[in-house]
């Protein structure tokens, strides 16, 4: 089994959340030197033959583009172009052709190593398949009664095919068995390697002595089935990793730095404290800093969970990760890269991960029981037959080889990868990306679900709640004003109001609101202080109109499927908790809407980690669902965690499962499918155990022929694979 490897793999995915926040050295080098532009674009809408020709044709016509090649499986296009060609230009070209495209950071898409490993496994699998087929043909002749010289010749030919195959195809097992032996452990690969070596060498010896039984077919079949399991395992992880890498590569970290009065685009890593950085409305703060020019509102929801935008003017301290909403801001950088608050928060994750007890997977636990048993059985068979036959070494070794071959965990090696492949494929189609091999098993054990509010249960996009209670002309004036702004509250207002009054001289005052003239009087829409109103406890915007002030209240729009998911999880008997960094009013209202009884507001990131840790200490298995940086620690501390694709990079890296779509309903499905998957795994262990219960006594008594070994092996492997595919 590739368990040791898969654990390493998992560690690499999640142990270094900082790597995802701060670009690595290679990436810096790649971004600093754009001499030969190799541009990668993601094409989420590409699906057909026409899309390929449209995209390749349109890109090929752009001056400077040398070649463009679409990969439809990965939904990407890679472009080789002269340095003056920019991704933004190509995206515009594709948009004109009706193709949505996003820039990918090629430095993050280092799939070559994974590809090489996959190709290597596939090649060994191909060789094992070729030999298995040929050796099996020869073995059928032997089983059906080839005699004397013919049998010997067939054995010799089999040996000539099987020995190189075992040496070549068995390498992954030999290497990992050697590694685990040196570490003083008995992994699953030790009995596998022992069986391969013992079966081949005893068969060569038997052939030389022109004996009746040779196990070349069993050795090659063993290698084939086990490689198949390993290849499935590898492919599942490669698909998940490439999708996760793509999510990360979508955020190209750049900042606009003022150099001698000119804005220059730079990689975030090249920005140092003291620089002046410009952040446009709608952009995310790349660094920590102090505002030196401009006024705006910032959305801090990803960092603190508060859904209410906060005013930012000259002198306001802003942190990396916040979103600038209305006006352009100029910042003096106080901390960038490793020193920024974004990075410090990521340290919290490292602490939580260190405290997390390492989960031993089902297959690992099975292997721990299984491998000593196999060795003991085989050696005691050898000892008994030595004694019973009065020192016939050849016979005793034959028996112990047969025992090793029959007990060899062919089905065990296939049992888990087959189920995981089938389950993660099913979940992928529902929009869930399983990043970690053991995430399914851990998800199945969940009994408590902790949700974050802003951005997770809600979309982070507001909805007007009191439209019906306001006079129609007030709404019309507000909509007329709001139409000119890009502030999220204004957009929500303009979107729902039917009639817009004709407001003239509309002017946006960044950070405060919008004002204009309507029927000869000045009207203002914006913050409470600016309009002369008392601020309410909930998210609201205010309209001052002819001396009176009207408040428009907002609530965060629920994420589609949130109600379904919460209801389904509750019906399933899960305890549901809502932990939010937002104000009490907004959290209480949402909790009531979803019927969640346990909730806390104003929770700080460290408190979230503490709450999750306390629940785990009570023996609860916690599923954490969150998206912000304030959830990252809790995501890492939980038994298993899910984050939406819209989450911050660090949060996605810390979580085991990523929700690719907008809809949240698949979470309930995922819990159901994961429990079914674990049941299938256990069933598979029982099935392969059952075959052993029948075949091992036969082998111990010395009645196991090569035919019986081949039958037991292929039947158990096939029934295990079929059982895995029953997953619904």
């Amino acid at each position: 089994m590739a368990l040791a490897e898969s654990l390493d793999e998992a560690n690499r995915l999640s142990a270094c959340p900082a790597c995802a926040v701060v670009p690595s050295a290679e990436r810096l080098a790649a971004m600093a030197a754009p001499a030969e532009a190799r541009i990668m674009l993601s094409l989420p809408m590409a699906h057909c033959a026409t899309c390929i020709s449209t995209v390749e044709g349109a890109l090929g016509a752009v001056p400077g583009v040398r070649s463009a090649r679409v990969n439809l499986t990965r939904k990407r296009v890679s472009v080789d172009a002269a340095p003056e060609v920019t991704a933004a230009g190509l995206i515009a070209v594709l948009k004109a052709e009706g193709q949505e495209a996003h820039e990918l950071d090629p430095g993050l898409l280092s799939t070559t190593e994974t590809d090489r490993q996959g190709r290597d496994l596939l090649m060994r699998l191909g060789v094992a398949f070729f030999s298995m087929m040929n050796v099996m043909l020869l073995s059928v002749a032997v089983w059906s009664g080839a005699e004397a010289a013919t049998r010997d010749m067939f054995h010799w030919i089999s040996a000539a095919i099987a020995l190189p195959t075992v040496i070549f195809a068995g390498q992954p097992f030999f290497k990992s068995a050697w590694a685990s032996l040196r570490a003083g452990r008995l992994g699953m690969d030790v009995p596998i390697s022992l069986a391969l070596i013992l079966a081949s060498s005893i068969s060569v010896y038997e052939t030389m002595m022109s004996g009746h039984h040779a196990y070349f077919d069993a050795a090659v079949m063993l290698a084939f089935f086990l490689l198949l399991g390993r290849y499935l395992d590898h492919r599942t992880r490669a698909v998940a990793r490439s999708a996760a890498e793509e999510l990360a590569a979508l955020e190209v970290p750049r900042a606009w730095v003022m150099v001698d009065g000119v804005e220059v685009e730079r990689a975030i890593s090249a920005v140092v404290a003291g620089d002046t950085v410009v952040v446009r409305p709608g952009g995310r703060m790349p660094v920590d800093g102090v505002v030196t020019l401009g006024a705006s509102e910032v959305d801090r929801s990803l960092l603190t969970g508060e859904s209410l935008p906060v005013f930012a003017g000259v002198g306001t301290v802003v942190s990396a990760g916040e979103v600038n909403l209305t006006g352009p801001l100029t910042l003096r950088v106080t901390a960038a890269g490793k020193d920024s608050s974004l990075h410090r928060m990521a340290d919290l994750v490292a602490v939580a991960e260190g405290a997390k007890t390492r989960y031993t997977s089902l297959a690992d636990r099975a292997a721990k029981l299984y491998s000593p048993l196999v060795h003991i059985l085989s050696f005691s068979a050898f000892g008994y037959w030595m004694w019973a036959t009065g020192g016939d070494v050849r016979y005793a070794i034959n028996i112990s080889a047969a025992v090793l071959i029959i007990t060899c965990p062919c089905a065990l090696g296939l049992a888990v990868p087959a189920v995981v492949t089938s389950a993660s494929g099913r979940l992928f189609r529902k929009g869930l990306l399983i990043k970690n091999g053991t995430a399914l098993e851990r998800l199945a054990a969940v009994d408590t679900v902790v949700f974050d509010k802003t951005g997770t249960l809600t979309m982070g996009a507001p909805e007007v709640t009191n439209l019906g209670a306001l006079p129609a002309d007030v709404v019309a004036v507000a909509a007329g004003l709001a139409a000119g702004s890009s502030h999220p509250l204004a957009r929500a207002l303009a979107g729902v109001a039917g009639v817009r009054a004709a407001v003239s001289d509309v002017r946006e005052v960044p950070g405060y609101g919008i004002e204009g003239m309507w029927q000869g009087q000045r009207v203002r829409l914006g913050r409470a202080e600016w309009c002369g109103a008392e601020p309410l406890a909930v998210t609201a915007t205010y309209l001052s109109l002819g001396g009176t002030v009207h408040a428009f209240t907002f609530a965060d729009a629920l994420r589609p499927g949130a109600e379904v998911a919460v209801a389904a999880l509750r019906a399933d008997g899960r305890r549901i908790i809502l932990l939010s960094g937002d104000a009490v009013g907004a959290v209480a209202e949402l909790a009531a809407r979803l019927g969640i009884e346990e909730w806390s507001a104003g929770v700080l990131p460290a408190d979230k980690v503490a709450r999750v840790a306390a629940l785990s200490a009570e023996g609860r298995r916690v599923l954490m669902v969150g998206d912000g940086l304030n959830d990252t620690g809790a995501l890492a501390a939980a038994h298993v965690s899910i984050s939406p694709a819209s989450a911050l990079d660090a949060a996605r890296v810390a979580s085991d499962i990523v929700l690719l779509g907008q809809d949240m309903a698949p979470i309930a499905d995922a819990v159901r499918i994961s429990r079914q998957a674990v049941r299938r795994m256990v069933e598979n262990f029982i099935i392969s155990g059952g075959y052993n219960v029948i075949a091992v006594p036969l082998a111990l008594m010395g009645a196991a022929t090569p035919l019986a070994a081949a039958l037991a092996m292929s039947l158990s492997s096939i029934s295990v694979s079929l059982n895995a595919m029953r997953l619904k």
Partner: protein
Amino acid sequence: MEILAILIPVSLFLGGVGLAAFFWAMKTKQFDDPDGDANRILTKEWDDRPKP
């Protein structure tokens, strides 16, 4: 049984041809984009002459 001396090498040779074809396909990266290749065959773009 002399026929075996011909048939066994023949069967091994044919299997070897299959294996070699598999290696070649893998070397030339024909398994990298199965969806794309399945769709590319439908385009009329290079029907008249091969892609330069």
